[in-house]
């Protein structure tokens, strides 16, 4: 009993000493008792932490306060009803909860030119334009497969496809798409772009809702790269850039 108490004490001391040592290593932590988060990015582990230099200030493109509106207007806090808006901690929790890419994806929805200058670790790149493709293209069907969405009914002929499209045009609502895609294994998606002034990920989200993607499986990181930069969080330049 006595030995067990000593052992427990040692374990507690060791844990608290480690935590203290980590907070000394990272004076600019992410949250209390959260100095950094290790995130899987492809085959690599990336340590997401904040810039430790307390005198650091944002420079360059993300220091700009003003861009022409429209199109760079301030977005509402919520992209659409039932789509949750999240912050940095929720994003880090999302990527570090170990659900894996077969269950969830963090999506950098910006166009290539933005993506290649730096992205949030753990993100995959799917530009918002890909979500606006025609549903009949192979690219769009490949994208749906990547998101865990499969066609509900295979089109048997050109005529049945044409009839489907005509009925869709006649009803002119999103319900025309009901039944086309099976979302039962759809992944949870968290999309982001450049920040509250950016409409790239909101457009992608709206396009997904348009085809019937369940809103409760969609998250929007509204702060985007703008807020990520403001907190000095780790940015990576993707491979092959």
């Amino acid at each position: 009993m006595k030995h067990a108490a000593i052992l427990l004490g040692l374990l507690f001391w060791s844990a608290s000493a480690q935590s203290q040592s980590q907070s000394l290593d990272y004076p600019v932590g992410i949250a209390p008792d959260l100095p950094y988060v290790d995130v899987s990015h492809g085959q690599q582990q990336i340590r997401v932490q904040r810039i430790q230099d307390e005198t650091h200030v944002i420079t360059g493109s993300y220091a700009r306060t003003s861009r022409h509106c429209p199109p760079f207007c301030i977005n509402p806090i919520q992209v659409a009803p039932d789509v949750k808006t999240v912050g940095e901690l929720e994003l880090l929790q999302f990527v570090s909860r170990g659900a894996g890419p077969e269950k969830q994806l963090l999506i950098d929805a910006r166009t290539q030119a933005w993506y290649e200058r730096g992205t949030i670790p753990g993100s995959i790149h799917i530009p918002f334009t890909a979500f606006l493709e025609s549903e009949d293209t192979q690219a769009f069907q490949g994208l749906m497969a990547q998101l865990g969405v499969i066609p509900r009914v295979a089109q048997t002929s050109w005529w049945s496809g044409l009839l489907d499209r005509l009925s869709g045009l006649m009803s002119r609502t999103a319900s025309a798409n009901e039944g086309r895609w099976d979302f039962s294994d759809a992944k949870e998606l968290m999309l982001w772009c450049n920040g509250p002034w950016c409409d790239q990920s909101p457009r992608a989200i709206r396009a997904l809702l348009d085809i019937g993607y369940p809103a409760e499986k969609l998250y929007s990181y509204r702060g985007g790269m703008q807020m990520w930069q403001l907190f000095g969080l780790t940015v990576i330049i993707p491979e092959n850039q």
Partner: protein
Amino acid sequence: MVKHQNLTGTRASTLRSIRRRSRTGVLPFALFVTLTGGQLIADTDPYLSAIEREASVLDTPANAQRLDPTDTRPASVRARDFMTPGMGLEDFEAELERRFPGTSMIYKSLAGDIRLTIYEGYRQDNRIAVIRRQIAYSM
């Protein structure tokens, strides 16, 4: 605000309905879009043009790290390759003690002027392997 919201909110469905219409009957339009590689839609979408213009003057964030695809070691291991750059002598010694206590113990046993040389060396090259080598050679 309301006008803009309406515009952006209907963009995806508008694009889709344009494309649906092209599929269902306007073959020449579909052929034209195919032949021009879809450039027409990109060129006539003012939002795409605006974000591409913005991106053309974008710089890489100061803290962006380039990934080395050949290095698959965990970040926690890689993070021990370097000491934080640009520290003063006191911070350098404090970090050395905190993160690399073994190396620090040997460092502390050195004479003051040699320690200064080690510190000057660190200011030129902050790889811990190089700092360790310098300390070892100075014993």
